[in-house]
């Protein structure tokens, strides 16, 4: 399936809104710099369109974003919470992008899961925050 032209601008808007409103940080799109030692979560979507979205966070950003989300200190965030929050972030970003791009569509989201990083997807955008890197990758079937 072809990638809609509005996908990248929509992704930027969604990232800004999600990070500001729910994770209390800001992100700017930047040239791709793959984060190593990070954490990644994937959501598959099925309907019109179908595909998958993967969110990858550097370890530093994952900890800071989790602490912001839960109102805890960085040291208090557990490994399990890091994974849950990476999954929740992928879920929110995926749902918001699809709802804005296809408000009349019927698309089902699978439960988010921890996954391998996806650096080869056709749509891939990195974002920089003061706490570290984040990348979003989308594959459309």
């Amino acid at each position, binding site marked *: 399936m072809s990638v809609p032209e509005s996908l990248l601008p929509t992704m930027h808007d969604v990232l800004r809104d999600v990070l500001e409103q*729910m994770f209390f940080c800001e992100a700017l799109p930047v040239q791709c710099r793959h984060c190593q030692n990070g954490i990644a979560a994937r959501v598959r979507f099925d309907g019109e369109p179908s595909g998958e979205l993967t969110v990858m966070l550097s370890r530093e950003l994952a900890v800071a974003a989790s602490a912001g989300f839960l*109102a805890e200190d960085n040291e208090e965030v557990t490994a399990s919470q890091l994974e*849950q929050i990476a999954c*929740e972030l992928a879920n929110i970003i995926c*749902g918001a992008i699809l*709802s804005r791009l296809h408000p*009349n569509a*019927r*698309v089902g989201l699978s439960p988010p899961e921890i996954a391998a990083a996806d650096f080869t997807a056709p749509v891939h955008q990195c974002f920089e925050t003061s706490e570290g890197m984040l990348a979003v990758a989308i594959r459309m079937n």
Partner: protein
Amino acid sequence: MTVLIVDDSPVMRTFVRRVMRLAGFGDAEYVEASDGCEGLRHVQSGRVDLVLTDINMPNMNGEEFLESLHASDVLRSIPALVISTDATRDRMARMMALGARGYIAKPFSPEALRDEVERALGGGDERS
């Protein structure tokens, strides 16, 4: 006021409770459920004044949960708001048809949550 938060994600339940407090509902009591079955048991206990529910959950999802609430003469009077990543028109219309008093799409701000909660409880501005 007792608020029931129904979501299969523990971190999301923590976040909603936190944002409710930021939105001015710090005096409320909060109870949590990880799916619609558990949520139904809480509302049947008779001490829930407001329900905030996700849609995609195991065992009993948000649609089935709202259907169960709406099917009961007693429980249908409890205001229920949906909090979901799915903001498609069809989904929102279905949940409102099942008796939801409001729909909050993620991401959302404390102010947006406060406005919807106040409206659902009858204290906010009526919107079309």
